[in-house]
């Protein structure tokens, strides 16, 4: 669905006359293919995760390398056209919200990519229902709590019904209940055959919802594989300044032989023993 070949990106502009040799690259030589598996990108703050997804979305342009989304070359199209295929929930909800009511905010994307009024309304109401925001249609998004703003951002992108959805830190400031809502949405989207990607710091959440994990470190792709494979590579995780999910940490410190990623895994493993 997405193909990335030898991608390089720097925030420092090249001098027009001579290329800047000591330019710092935010992303270095990234190559990967995104398929339908729910995929989490993990890594330290500043590892290049957000930069990477902004390139996929067409909001930033790569210096070198090729990116295609659903067969379309990102460098030959505009972010507006890409929006039909790929949705991005921004990290900071305050950067994404700009309409006066919850309803207008959620309708904005679907109407812009050419969904009919009726279809858009149906899609929006479904998304807002899932997020339990349908009783706040006339509220100004800026009056919502931060956690609800984030859920509104997710609903607004979900309503656009794109084949690919990227969630940048979807669980920010969510409480237990909000976290469960986000989990439900991710599973729902997966079941509908959409490709879901996320950037996230909550490793237990990753273990519960995502099959594939890509580890970024200082602008490079460090690891790419199944959740069990990645989380059991202690050395690489340490290099990326990450730690395994809490459940796995417990399993490791008890010396359980199996790679138990979640609470349920550990409990099952202990019961069997």
């Amino acid at each position: 669905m997405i193909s990335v070949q030898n991608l390089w990106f720097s925030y420092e502009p090249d001098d027009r006359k001579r290329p800047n040799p000591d330019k710092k690259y935010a992303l270095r030589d990234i190559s990967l293919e995104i398929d339908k598996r729910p995929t989490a990108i993990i890594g330290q703050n500043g590892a290049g995760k957000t930069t990477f997804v902004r390139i996929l979305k067409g909001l930033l342009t790569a210096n070198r390398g090729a990116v295609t989304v659903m067969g379309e070359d990102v460098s030959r199209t505009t972010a507006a056209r890409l929006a039909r295929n790929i949705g991005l929930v921004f990290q900071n909800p305050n950067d994404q919200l700009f309409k006066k009511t919850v309803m207008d905010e959620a309708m904005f994307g679907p109407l812009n990519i050419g969904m009919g009024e009726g279809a858009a309304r149906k899609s929006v109401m479904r998304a807002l229902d899932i997020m339990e925001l349908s009783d706040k249609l006339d509220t100004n998004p800026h009056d919502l709590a931060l956690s609800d703003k984030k859920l509104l951002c997710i609903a607004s992108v979900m309503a656009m019904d794109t084949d690919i959805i990227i969630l940048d830190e979807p669980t920010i400031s969510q409480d237990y209940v909000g976290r469960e809502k986000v989990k439900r949405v991710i599973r729902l989207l997966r079941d509908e055959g959409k490709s879901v990607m996320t950037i996230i710091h909550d490793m237990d959440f990753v273990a519960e919802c995502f099959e594939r994990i890509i580890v970024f470190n200082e602008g490079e792709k460090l690891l790419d594989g199944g959740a069990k494979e990645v989380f059991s590579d202690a050395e690489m995780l340490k290099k990326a300044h990450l730690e395994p999910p809490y459940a796995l940490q417990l399993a490791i410190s008890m010396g359980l032989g199996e790679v138990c990623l979640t609470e349920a895994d550990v409990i099952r493993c202990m019961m069997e023993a």
Partner: protein
Amino acid sequence: MKKVIVENLKYRYPAMKQLALDEISFEVEEGEKIGVIGRNSSGKSTLCQALVGLTPHFYKGTYGGRVIVDGLEIKHATVSEAALKVGIVFQNPFTQVTGAKLTVYEEVAFGLENMGLSRAEMIEKVDRALHLLNIYPFRNQNPFSLSGGQMQRMAIAGIIAMRPSIIVLDEPTSQLDPQGTEEVFSAMDELSAEGMTVVIVEHKMEKVAQYCDKILVMKDGKRAAFDTPAKVFSRDDLSELGVCAPVYTNICKALGKKEGAYYPVTLAGAARVLGARR
């Protein structure tokens, strides 16, 4: 010595029917670390504002009861007076930037300038705060050029540089990676060992359980529980309170393994109770 005394605190926002804070009472000893947990809009942020006087001085509305912080009754002090005793780190670090300083270093020193400290004292305190929060390398950058996580660290540094006897943090690690979160909690640990009292709102239960001496659970503006992490997380009615225990506690609960009267709440505790096997 009691550093925070909250007595029957009641507060209602203007034009709201429900009380945001409903008869809240609790006391905190010097150097204690208190974790505040609960569902969103259960009153955690409002409580933080009340502890530093933003409620009722900035947020008008119906106010009742007392908040006494380091001997100062908040209702009768200005926010600036209270700020010398109790510091607050807002949920959104962006709103904490003063917007009048061109570098991170100057931004962190802002409170110290208002306190009228000497230049030498300022430099010592700002340096320490920047090192403690690991943002010393960014000291010459423009505050608005920082990432969310760096801004969060700067906001904390700006408050701890002022050395208040109490610090209130409203979800200070929401934009930080696991290592950054750990660094903030261990910085708080270090400061509390020096006698600073810490009140921290946080959704990461494993960290709260590991670092906090007591936990205050808020529900619908009320105090639903106020006790040690082991006692709070051992309760059977957590889901009714809208909170979830740490992963370690949940596993021990499912397996029925207690340590004494309560379930363990930390990695070490859980490993001890469940027993290592090879």
